[in-house]
């Protein structure tokens, strides 16, 4: 009798614990199950690949954003950097002005420079990264619009769209999916198995303690924002390749979608706690929502409404997780 009354609440708490611990997975699975029931075509391999493809450019900036948010920062400018990438690349290769490979390198350096500037202004000027990147989000977008007078610039070079956009490996897996998964693996490794990842977590967890322990805070921060620019570079190339042109207003939702994905993945907005797996799960939730609701015939405005609700739900679960940990 005693054993029974004791074990029931205990097993319930372990169940709750698991549920809360793997909350990102749980939300994702429930979501996918619901969509599959309502529209069986959702679970179709072709559709799942489409989800992964549409997720790819969000996931890529999300990976960089995981470093930034774990560090206790934020980067709102990634979408604008992605637009600058697409636009400048299109302008450079237009009419054979610059060959494709050097053009790529120039744009790569430019995007990292824009990311570095975010970090530099924030670190040296001692300004909240939220404010800095809110400003640069506008500045970089303005740059993309100015360069193109607001008009799309077509990209007409061979293989570009194939490599970064609509090509398929073995005629099955879209190349953006491959690129994003490779970057995921690299990011996971850097985040968990290298000094840099460790310092990102320790600075985000306690900057002053990290300073006293001799960790070079500014260097780590500058590196993280520069990397965020690099991730935005790849994301921008994919966006440009999918459209076959540099669009000055590409990636308008990119930063917020990526931040949503990272937060859904359990990374704490205050820093210190984050995982790459969580970000993968979180971005998949967002992509599944977009796809599933389109299949259900929901319009864009309903989609973003539901997206917002899911984020609130996830953060509530996050708080439950934290209060349980205490």
């Amino acid at each position: 009798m005693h054993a029974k009354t004791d074990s029931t609440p205990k097993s319930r708490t372990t169940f709750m614990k698991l549920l809360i611990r793997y909350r990102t997975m749980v939300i994702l699975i429930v979501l996918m199950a619901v969509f599959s029931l309502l529209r069986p075509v959702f679970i179709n391999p072709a559709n799942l690949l489409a989800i992964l493809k549409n997720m790819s450019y969000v996931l890529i900036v999300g990976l960089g954003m995981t470093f930034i948010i774990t560090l206790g920062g934020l980067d709102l400018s990634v979408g604008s950097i992605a637009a600058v990438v697409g636009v400048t690349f299109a302008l450079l290769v237009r009419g054979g002005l610059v060959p494709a490979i050097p053009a790529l390198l120039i744009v790569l350096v430019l995007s990292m420079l824009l990311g570095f500037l975010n970090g530099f202004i924030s670190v040296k000027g001692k300004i909240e990264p939220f404010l800095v990147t809110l400003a640069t989000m506008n500045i970089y977008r303005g740059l993309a619009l100015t360069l193109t007078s607001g008009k799309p610039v077509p990209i007409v070079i061979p293989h570009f769209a194939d490599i970064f956009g609509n090509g398929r490996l073995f005629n099955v897996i879209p190349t953006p999916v491959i690129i994003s998964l490779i970057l995921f693996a690299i990011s996971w490794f850097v985040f968990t198995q290298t000094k840099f990842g460790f310092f990102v977590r320790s600075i985000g967890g306690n900057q002053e303690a990290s300073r006293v322990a001799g960790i070079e805070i500014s260097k780590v921060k500058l590196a993280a924002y520069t990397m965020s620019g690099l991730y935005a570079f790849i994301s921008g190339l994919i966006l440009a390749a999918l459209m076959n042109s540099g669009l000055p207003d590409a990636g308008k939702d990119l930063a917020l979608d990526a931040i949503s994905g990272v937060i859904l993945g359990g990374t704490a907005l205050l820093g210190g706690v984050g995982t790459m797996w969580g970000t993968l799960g979180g971005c998949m939730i967002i992509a599944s929502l977009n796809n599933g609701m389109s299949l259900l015939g929901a319009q864009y405005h309903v989609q973003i409404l539901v997206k917002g609700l899911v984020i609130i739900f996830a953060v509530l679960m996050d708080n439950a997780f934290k209060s349980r940990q205490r």
Partner: protein
Amino acid sequence: MSPDEYVLELRNISKTFPGVVALKNVSMNVKKGEVHALLGENGAGKSTLIKILSGYHQPDKGGEILINGKPVSFKEPRDAIKSSIVTIYQELTLCPDMTVAENIVLDKQNEFKGFLLRQSDYQVIADRVLSALGQNEIDPNRSVRSLSIAQQQVVEIAKAVTSKAQIVLMDEPTSSISESDTKKLMDIIRNLKANGVAVIYISHRLHEINGIADRITVLRDGELVGTVNNADVTEQDLIQMMVGRELKNVYPKRDVQIGETVLKVENLVSGELVKGISFEVHKGEILGIGGLVGSRRTEMLEALFGLRPITEGKIYLNNEEIHPRNPREAIKHRIAFVTEDRKKTGLVACLPVYENINMLNAQRPSFAGYLNWQQLKEIAQRHRKTLDIRVSKIEQIMGSLSGGNQQKVALAKWLDFSPQVIIFDEPTRGIDIGAKTEIYQIMGDLAARGTAILMVSSELPELISVADRILVMQEGYMKGIVEKEQMTQEYVMSLATQKMQNLPANSPMKGLMTDAC
């Protein structure tokens, strides 16, 4: 006196935090219109008791709180306020950009009907209460930011008085105000008492308590030592009650050969804060650093460790001049700093124990920045064993450890660099007595291995028992170095408190332990 005259009664109050018992079976009572002092060393449980009374903590099951003879339970701070218990904290809780009057009525908005602010009503209330406290010189229309700290405290008290408090808790109200303001505060307390309000007064300053308290309750290590009438006891009695343990058992004996000079500091100046400190510390020596809170001991150490700019003076390490401009450079010279505030500067609470232990090890050069976590975990296991860090597994999150274990981790991270100098800033703050002894033991072992140790402590018994010599500071200046044979609590305290000009040697002093309890 019949029990129903007690405005507040505590019966068998205990409070357990993960890993630490903060209060054990404490019972006390407070009479109407009485000033009741709460006294005890650091970690004696005063703050925990205050937090229970103000509703921030809930006591363990089995304890009881009675107000006017009726049991109450506080789930949150507003419950305590409803029961007319008002707390005045060490850190003031005013809104600096609001006016005095607005602050005074801030927690009483329920009493005002309607939707609009009633500035004129507020002013009337503020005027009335300020003049009742004899503080007419404070203009209710001024913003709180423009007031002195002491005046802000008056506003805080005014806020408490207007909420018809029966019981006012004051947590070290004089820690940041001047002597003359303290006198005013005492007048205000007498005023409250005359109006039938019970005041529970926490202070380290024995002479203040002597002057104002009716009864005194002493806590030690979370337990009640006793409640006495102020008139019946001397300061010496109170110190005995507070410290009252066999110091021998707490401080392990050590016998270390003191070697050549490791660190030599000459006329160290850092901005306006640290003003000309000189000392030497030798191999195997523990140099204690004493002084009151605000004597800028921590600031001096921070300058040594590169956390503060050094504006003048020289630092020699093994006879070579060094210029640590940041912690990284200090660490390169094998100087370690176990900081005072573990939560703020010593640890990363959200990371696991093994990662905290390896904060410095992880900075060693490695191929492509790769970290061999397997190896680092083994290092962590080794420290866990040698320092007896009590955790269920090294993957445990740092924040869940007790103070003593956190301190051991905060120390462990420095050890693989075989530091020549280790700076300990309040190494036993917030740690229970058993863990304290272990920390002293570890410090002794480090000294025996030839490490030079600097130790700031506000606990005089600790300073005297552990240190070989004591450097005493006051307001950033150096007041002298006390050799082993001169070490008495009285002498160290007199150096720490008396004005720079007239300092008679070995004078008996009031307010012993000012800062030590």
